[in-house]
């Protein structure tokens, strides 16, 4: 089977990853912290190609929460990119963003959400929004391509205008589901 079938990603014709990149530029984002996800692969490539953005690949997502609190303390604006499974890794560290009133926009590509193949993705995917909200994060969702840019823009505005963690969940329906060749 095709190796590409193992990792789902938006098809080449979808341009919502480029619209996210444009939105990050509009908001003056200079630090991009991430644990890679196939759904964000195109956005990550755009950010890596931008000399005005510092892309930091983390060993675990909670590092990005602390890093972006530090960025804000130094006057820089950042964004955290991750897959829904990474939200669980961030739970306690979100305390810092809440306590320190630090803008912390998170762009989360969903797994275990729509047509999932891998049973291990379901528990955290199903809990992603509840966990974020339990830790004081304002959560908005996009399940259609036309909604992605406005939802990301709204998520960034909420974070930087009101000083708190916010998240945009990008539905699995937009990204596709892994099939392992079984479709």
């Amino acid at each position, binding site marked *: 089977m095709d190796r590409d079938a193992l990792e789902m990603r938006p098809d080449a014709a979808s341009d919502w990853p480029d619209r996210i990149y444009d939105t990050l530029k509009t908001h003056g984002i*200079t*630090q991009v*912290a991430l644990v890679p996800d196939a759904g964000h692969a195109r956005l990550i490539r755009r950010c890596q190609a931008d000399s005005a953005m*510092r892309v*930091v*690949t*983390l*060993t*675990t997502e*909670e*590092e*990005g*929460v*602390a*890093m*972006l*609190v*530090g*960025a*804000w*303390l*130094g*006057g*820089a604006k*950042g964004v955290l990119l991750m897959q829904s499974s990474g939200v669980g890794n961030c739970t*306690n*560290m979100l*305390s*810092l963003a*809440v*306590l*320190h*009133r*630090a803008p912390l926009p998170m762009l989360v590509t969903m797994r275990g959400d729509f047509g999932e193949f891998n049973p291990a993705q379901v528990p955290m995917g199903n809990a992603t929004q509840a966990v974020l909200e339990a830790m004081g994060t304002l959560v908005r969702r996009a399940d259609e391509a036309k909604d992605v840019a406005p939802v990301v823009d709204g998520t960034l505005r909420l974070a*930087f205008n009101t000083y708190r963690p916010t998240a945009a969940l990008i539905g699995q329906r937009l990204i596709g589901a892994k099939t392992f060749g079984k479709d």
Partner: protein
Amino acid sequence: MPTDPTLDRRAVVRELLRDRGDLLVVAGLGASAWDITAAGDCPANLPLWGGMGGAAMLGLGLALAQPKRRVLVITGDGEMLMALGALATIGVQKPVNLTVVVLDNEHYSETGGQETATRHGVDLAAIARGAGIPDSRIVRGAEDLPGLRSDIHRAAAPLFAVVKIAAGNAPLVLPPREGAFLTARFREAVLGSAAHHQL
């Protein structure tokens, strides 16, 4: 078997922060936060009250945001052990203006003095070196502190130091607890009054 460390944590921090100039200081939760406060609370201090395992990464984000300022993270062995991956992240980024100092008493002193992994031979400086921070050192005597202090202000590469200190608690000297206040005063110290009008 090496003898137990004798360096006093408060004396160590006082020396490292002597004539600190515009040094920005982040302290991990617990005793490290009390230590930087005992040395003199000021707006350029960011003492953490939570987020265990976040101190070094907070320092990285700050150091990348303010490449012309020197950033010092002071934290404990327990807090650093929770964030070994952060050493790899920092080792890859190589911020020249960031120093991480671990005050290593080989115990969780805030929770009853339970032993940490460093008590059993885990070498944080070796881990940091392996993670890509070549200047990773262990300081055991007061005679090495002035050199470390100087390097914090001058190093041309990220610096990691484990300072072996005596176990036991120093008197509590608590920093402000309100995070919004700590953030606002720190940002004003770095950015001036523009900090409060950033869009």
